[in-house]
């Protein structure tokens, strides 16, 4: 390889934690071209398979390498409605599947993607293209997260009249209220929403389907509805002291902070990390977002607990290339000063006068049980008490909310997601489609967009008999 892998740099931690702005330092165009040149135009581009959207990665890499940014923009948008989101936020399964990654650093696909998207906006190539012909079909998309938005845009392109329902003040879902600004500034969402708006999509915010308007009513009003409400039910930690003041859900903390940054009002008491010893329970992306936010709010210290063992830097044996590996990933937030602790289980919270003061943990061990599954056991004598003022629970989500499910009498799957056929995304009720986390359970933005796009095709086909909306084609790499 002639060139080393390079991605955008970060502003120094001590500097970047003083604000909520994005802090990447973009590569120069000539470096980006070099990065594009690292792509080997493989006979089998596993990246293209690893990407849930089926992004045409070798093709846009080549376009970038040849300095054909507009062509790259076209190629990228042909499979991805919102590359500016995935270019920032995706954990990049494509890069794990990159052939170069077998024995070298993979191509910086995601970073290239981001720059294509940003260049496109900068040059004014991303423009509204309202459909030339309209059908007489009306479709409601419930939820304005990445799945809902992608689905809405696709269906609008097919000429249908699309209304997006959002219960919050502004569209965007977790992108807006879950992801901190330092990872995704909200004007990034807004500029895309402007385009969707201009293309003729109606956004109805502050209306919660199932509450403000019944799902049944919606179903009657529209030719089809697509549920893209996400997997929003948060996992709880039902242990002693969980109700102490200072034990908070990560999502409450993050959404409140995003509203603050945006100058929006928020409900409930303020949750602040300022001057506090903070412990974030949960080693995932949400946990990581909590860490970065806590530092920016002025936390004295941030500890991060993960119940699973510390993964290695290398691939585990059972997850060889090109499959997605569980391995140690360190985010920019982690680098801002958090202490990470693995194989730790929280046993109880302790407090005084209803206010959290500390928590108690025990170390755990994982071993394969008789059924072949990994099971955990606590190691006696490893209890430890950690003084703390704020605990943020970032334990993930357990599935879909149920009000719409109940109103429409939809079937759920065993994992409390709404059941919808993988072949056409249709729920147990004809005309009601489900896409994104609400169908597949909590997952990645890239999956949400992919589901939104795929569902749109099937909705279109359901309404019109056939569809010209693209499908991504076969070839998803399974998880192992």
């Amino acid at each position: 390889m002639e060139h080393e892998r390079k991605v955008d740099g970060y502003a120094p931690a001590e500097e970047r934690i003083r604000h909520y702005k994005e802090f990447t330092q973009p590569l120069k165009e000539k470096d980006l071209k070099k990065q594009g040149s690292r792509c080997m135009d493989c006979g089998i581009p596993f990246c293209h398979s690893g990407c849930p959207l089926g992004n045409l990665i070798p093709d846009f890499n080549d376009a970038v390498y040849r300095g054909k940014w507009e062509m790259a923009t076209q190629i990228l948008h042909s499979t991805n409605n919102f590359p500016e989101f995935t270019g920032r936020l995706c954990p990049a399964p494509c890069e794990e599947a990159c052939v170069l990654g077998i024995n070298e650093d993979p191509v910086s696909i995601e970073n290239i993607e981001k720059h294509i998207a940003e260049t496109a906006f900068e040059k004014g190539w991303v423009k509204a293209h309202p459909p030339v012909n309209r059908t007489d079909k009306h479709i409601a998309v419930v939820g304005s997260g990445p799945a809902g938005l992608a689905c809405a845009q696709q269906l609008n392109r097919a000429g249908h009249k699309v209304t997006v329902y959002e219960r919050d003040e502004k569209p965007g879902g977790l992108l807006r209220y879950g992801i901190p600004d330092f990872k995704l500034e909200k004007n990034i969402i807004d500029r895309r929403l402007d385009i969707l708006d201009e293309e003729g999509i109606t956004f109805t915010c502050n209306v919660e389907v199932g509450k403000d308007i019944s799902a049944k009513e919606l179903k009657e009003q529209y030719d089809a509805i697509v549920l893209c409400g996400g997997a929003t039910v948060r996992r709880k930690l039902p242990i002693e002291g969980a109700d102490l003041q200072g034990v908070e859900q990560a999502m409450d903390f993050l959404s409140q902070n995003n509203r603050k940054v945006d100058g929006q009002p928020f409900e409930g008491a303020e949750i602040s990390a300022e001057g506090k010893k903070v412990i974030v329970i949960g080693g995932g992306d949400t946990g990581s977002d909590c860490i970065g936010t806590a530092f920016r709010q002025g936390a004295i210290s941030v500890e991060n607990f993960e119940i699973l063992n510390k993964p290695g830097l290398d691939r585990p044996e059972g997850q060889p290339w090109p499959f997605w590996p569980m391995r140690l990933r360190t985010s920019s937030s982690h680098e801002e000063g958090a202490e990470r602790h693995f194989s730790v289980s929280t046993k109880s919270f302790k407090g005084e006068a209803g206010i959290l003061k500390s928590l108690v943990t025990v170390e755990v061990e994982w071993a394969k049980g008789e059924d072949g599954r990994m099971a955990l056991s606590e190691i006696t004598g490893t209890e430890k008490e950690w003084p703390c003022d704020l605990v943020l629970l970032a334990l993930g989500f357990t599935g879909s909310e149920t009000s719409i499910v109940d109103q429409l009498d939809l079937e759920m799957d065993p994992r409390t997601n709404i059941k919808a056929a993988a072949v056409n995304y249709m729920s147990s009720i004809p005309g009601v489609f489900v896409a994104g986390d609400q169908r597949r359970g909590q997952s990645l933005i890239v999956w949400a967009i992919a589901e939104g796009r795929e569902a749109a095709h099937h909705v279109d086909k359901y309404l019109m008999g056939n569809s010209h909306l693209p499908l991504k084609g076969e070839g998803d790499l399974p998880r192992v």
Partner: protein
Amino acid sequence: MPLQQQGLYFPEFEHDNCGAGFICSLKGERSNHIIHIALEILDKLEHRGAVSADGKTGDGAGILIDIPHEFFTDVCSFEIPERGSYAVGNIFLPRKSNQQKYCISILEQELENQGLTLLGWRDVPVNPAIPGRIAKETEPIVKQLFVGKASEEQEDFEFQAKLFSARKIAEHEIYNSRISEAEFFYVPSLSTRIIIFKGLLMPEDIKLYYKDLMDPRVITRLALVHQRFSTNTFPTWDLAQPFRYMCHNGEINTLKGNVFRMQAREELMKSPLFGDAIKKILPTVLPGKSDSASMDMVVELLLMTGRSLPEVMMLLVPEAWEKNPDMDPAKRAFYEYHSCLMEPWDGPASIPFTDGNYIGAVLDRNGLRPSRYSVTKSGFVIMSSETGVLDIEPENIEMHGRLEPGKMFLVNMEEGRIVNDEEIKQAIVAKHPYEDWVKNNLIHLKDIPYNAEIEVQEEVGLGQRKKVFGYTQEDINTLILPMGMHAKEPIGSMGSDTPIAVLSERPQLVYNYFKQLFAQVTNPPLDGIREELICDISLTLGSDQNIFEYTELHCRKLKIQNPVISKEDLDKIKHHDKSPDYKVVSIPILYEKERGHNGLEDGLEAVLSKAVSAIDKGANIIILSDRGVNAKKAPIPALLACSFVNSALQRLKKRTKLSIIIESAEPREVHHFALLFGFGASAINPYMVNEIIAEQIEAHDITEYTFEEAIQNYNKAIGKGILKVMNKIGISTLNSYRGAQLFECIGLHSELVNKYFPATPTRIQGIGLYELEKEITQRHYKAFGKPDLDATLDLEIGGEYRWRRNGEAHMFNPLTVAKLQKAVRNNEATTYKEYAALVNEQSRHLMTLRGLFEFTNLDPIPLEDVEPWTEIVKRFKTGAMSYGSISKEAHENLAIAMNRIGGKSNSGEGGEDPDRFYKNQSGDWKNSAIKQVASGRFGVSSNYLTNAREIQIKMAQGAKPGEGGQLPGAKVGPEIAKTRNSTPYVGLISPPPHHDIYSIEDLSQLIYDLKCANREARINVKLVSEIGVGTVAAGVAKAKADVILVSGHDGGTGASPLTSLKHAGLPWELGISETQQTLVMNDLRNRVVLECDGQLKTGRDVAVACLLGAEEFGFATAPLVASGCIMMRVCHLNTCPVGIATQNPELRKKFEGKPEHVVNYMYFIAQELREIMAQLGFRTVDEMVGQVQKLDRSNALDHYKSNGLDLGPILHKVRTPEGTKLYNTEEQDHGIKEAIDFELIERAHPALFRKEKTKLSSPIRNTNRAVGAILSNEISKNYGAEGLPDGTLKIDFTGSAGQSFGAFATKGLILSVNGNTNDYLGKGLSGARLIIRVPEGTTFKPEENIIIGNVALYGATSGEAYINGKAGERFCVRNSGATAVVEGIGDHGCEYMTGGTAVILGSVGRNFGAGMSGGIAYVYDKDNSFRKQCNSASLNLLDVEDEEDISTLRRLVEQHYNYTLSTVAQGILENWDVRLAKFVKVYPEEYRQALIRIAEEKLQTV
């Protein structure tokens, strides 16, 4: 009766090759003795023929002699007129007496109609006990017919014409009569001068069968003899040779086109000689005859035009005049004029011919058949495929010669002298003012002025039109762009794993339903790059004329150098109006899309009727144009239109009036153009490619060239590509390729084919016009019907060459690769099952033919009853991948793995490091069980062959059948150079053909050579699936191969032009079953092992292959994937990121494959196979072979395209007697036991076992072949590559050595011949010294006489050769280390040489040093003619000045003198200082640079 078509077997793909010769008395003395001598010649050529399964039936042999007038006068019961004033013929007749009488009466009637006199009939006495069982079945009754002139005054020529008419008309009548034994009727000869005795007989049996021949009263001045080697055992009596005027050793590749064009020519034939009756004589060529028989019928007709026999031969087999600026202008003009009349009958051909007055022979332009002659002082001329067939005292030899490429050898019997080529031809070319005619009439396109740009207005934008014609971004970026930039066809690797067109779910262009045919075994592919001077792609356009006349009109034509033309050229043609007899008409090829397939059908008819009316109005060029598509009009596929017009006009007898030009947006890759030319086009303008290139210039994708240059580059690339496609099947000129239809359809219904592509084979049916139209509609819809949605790509990405989700499906895709690697690395049976399920499922998902089958007739048995996996894997092999194409690590990994399980790995074409021949301490063995012998012969030495368990002759390769290869110098590092016996950094070329296999009998010879080189090893011949492969395989089985491998078309490779990767060869399902069927039909199946490979991926694949007839199985891509290959498809770039297909030391470190991975893979495959066997009820693989009744077409599939497929022919089971084994049960008898080596070994005991110097002598003759190979094998067994000390064993032979004298002869041997030798002297020479000198008593000048044959020292790796006389063609071809001194050579000397030294002390033929990348040649250039003969592209021609050079040269000349007493050497040495200045040192530039680099590296290490 020839065998009828059944299953996949098509009788038209029979081939034959042969031994031929003649003898004549210059003094005109007639004797019976000549017959005996002639038959002795045949007897001595018996190894060039073959025998059927009954062990007695030859493939046919015959003899042509003067009419024995005195004999007939004696034996006939009726009166016979004077010699020459009557005709006599041997007539084959039906056996049933009524039918016999019928034939006789017809013939008599027609003779009477011609006014001739029937003199009488005589029963030919034959011995019925002679023919073998098979021959007996088709033995005719033979009678002699005597015919007198109409009157005494009748001119001889008229008499001939009447005889010809009568016979022709009678033939037509009888063959059309539908009598059951019509096929028995045949007239071997009916002539006033000669008579032919022939039959399905062994050569020695001819005279026993035809008792006349033994009668001393039967005397002749000349005798022409021939014996056939047919690929199968259904030869017939009538196809035995000689034919009426000629016999033929070789193969006419262009036959189909020649016959079509001959038919077309018949439209115009007019002759006062025949008048209206001419219609009754036609067609000239009877259907169903062999190439030689067909050619003979044309010769016969052309003789009736008043041409002499030599002139006819010049017409049919012209020398390579196109690129020979030194040719006499008159002769050149003759050839150019005649190129407007007749395309060459192209292919390897040595054609002895005679009309009784002249006897002679002509050789094809490539010189691909051996033809040697000797003239004796006693007045005999003896010509034959080999020298030494008769014992002639040295003192009696006047001269030894050979037939040269394109040259003629002629004896004028009346004048009793040999007429040399120049003299014959001079007289012929002076007959008419050809030079003036050509100058005044033939227009060259380049000379037509370009007037003004004529704008073509397309109403629809380029973007939409691209979609209509199915362009993808991949087409543009992968195909068009590289050709526009580099003027070369793009290269790819790792084969093809996409579905064949009929199984693809994506709309396909019609072109994709056709596969290119290619040469294997029965004729050689050619090398149009290195042997460019023989090839030509120019074409002439315009109307043809009556071949019975000579006028200047015949050459009033338009000539195009490269018929892939630009828009500008097309405009020039359209608007050229200088000539009154030049008219161009443009015909749109569009149809009303709305009207669907009826619209298409009517559209085609409309095109035809427009063409017909254009002809009627005097057009001589039509342009079929698909310009002007729009929302309503869809394009008729250009190929469909072209072929339809071409064939329909032929049917309507209007074809010769005009030429077809294609103006189409469709053609973009070489295959498209090849098809259009192959189906009758004469020029093509790919206008959309021109527009796309314009776009690329605009977008700065092409910057180094202007628009015009880029177009030229592209056209040039296509031109070169077409040349390669032609060369692949052994054709040198586009003139012959045009209209020859050398393709097979796969997936087209015969209804469609019969109507639009008549006479093209299609064996499993498939889609019709309806489905074809549907595919057009799908593309049209994408352009005009589909709404324009935002954020979709203008043009699809593609995915044909590189996998894309929405592109064409690939068998190896992310999931299958990932699962397979996970399975073998972690030894996870469950993951393997997932992988296998994916592959098997996707193959059922309409990707492969095997996917369409399902198992049936299940008869389950317990799994434990099935033979264990350890037994099964012994039948498994890994593919032939050379060290060089893949890394050392990857190569050894496969070898270790296969040795661990008792399977076989394959060395590939790259030699092998002898260190690997011995097991290492851990017991692992890196020795490849199979050693490959391919056309480059890299590293093929006695020791290499000795260490093989199986030796594989690669006749073709699935990914690029019919093509050679090239390893660029940069990749030839010191280690690779060592194993390949070559010089580091010197590029290595594998020629397209094996230069010792131009025909089936040559292959038989190589098999014999290799068997001698290692008797324990099985000889495996690798073929590639195509129509006729079964027939070829039958021939190969008769040539004594032990194993026949039939490869699928889709195999991987390090590098191949994309055209070959995709469009040549067929899936193995067809090849294996055709081979199985044909071998079983021929009763040859049990003599050979049948092996299959080509993208075998799972146990199910193996099971299907086995049920179709395979018993051993090869895997290449999958074991590589198991070793870490991720199908990067950059093998040709040396950048393999996983260390497999690379020699870069850094990248090689990345190789992570382990033998276990490969072992696991083989284990999984075997287990899956066992499970299927248990289900089907087979305990052993043997039981399972060929049990096609266990396969059925799956009902589960339903796709509009696949519905029309008929898999019946694949599943056809040949009826056999009970108990016939369908697998290998018998060993071949190679006839090794008779070799004289064994006797020599006994006598050489002290040398061989005690290294004592020993000297022996022995007589030798042409039937002693490959002498020295067995001896060398014994030495290699004991002493390895080291051999014996120099000069330990010296053997002096006296006589004419057979072919391959000194083959693979190793160190320590000195083999000398007092006499001469045949072809392939010192093949693979491995260290021995060979000395060939003229015997004592010789009076001729050795330097002017042919002493050794063609292709000497082919692939020699070390050793020396001293030749006291001249050599034939291709001296030192692919020599990589031997030193040779010779006194003159033929054409193509030192071709592809990569090392060693050649000293040539005499004349040198054309094209010296083509592809010579290494080694040094010193040429004694007496008359300063050498430079002109040189293919000097990359050669330095220097004076010999360097001290070291001078001393080397002097030493070699001295040695030559010492060993041979050469007078030439003596002369040079006596005047050394003067003569030295005459020497030219030929020093390849690449070699010079390599030596500098090596010297530098040595300095660095010091």
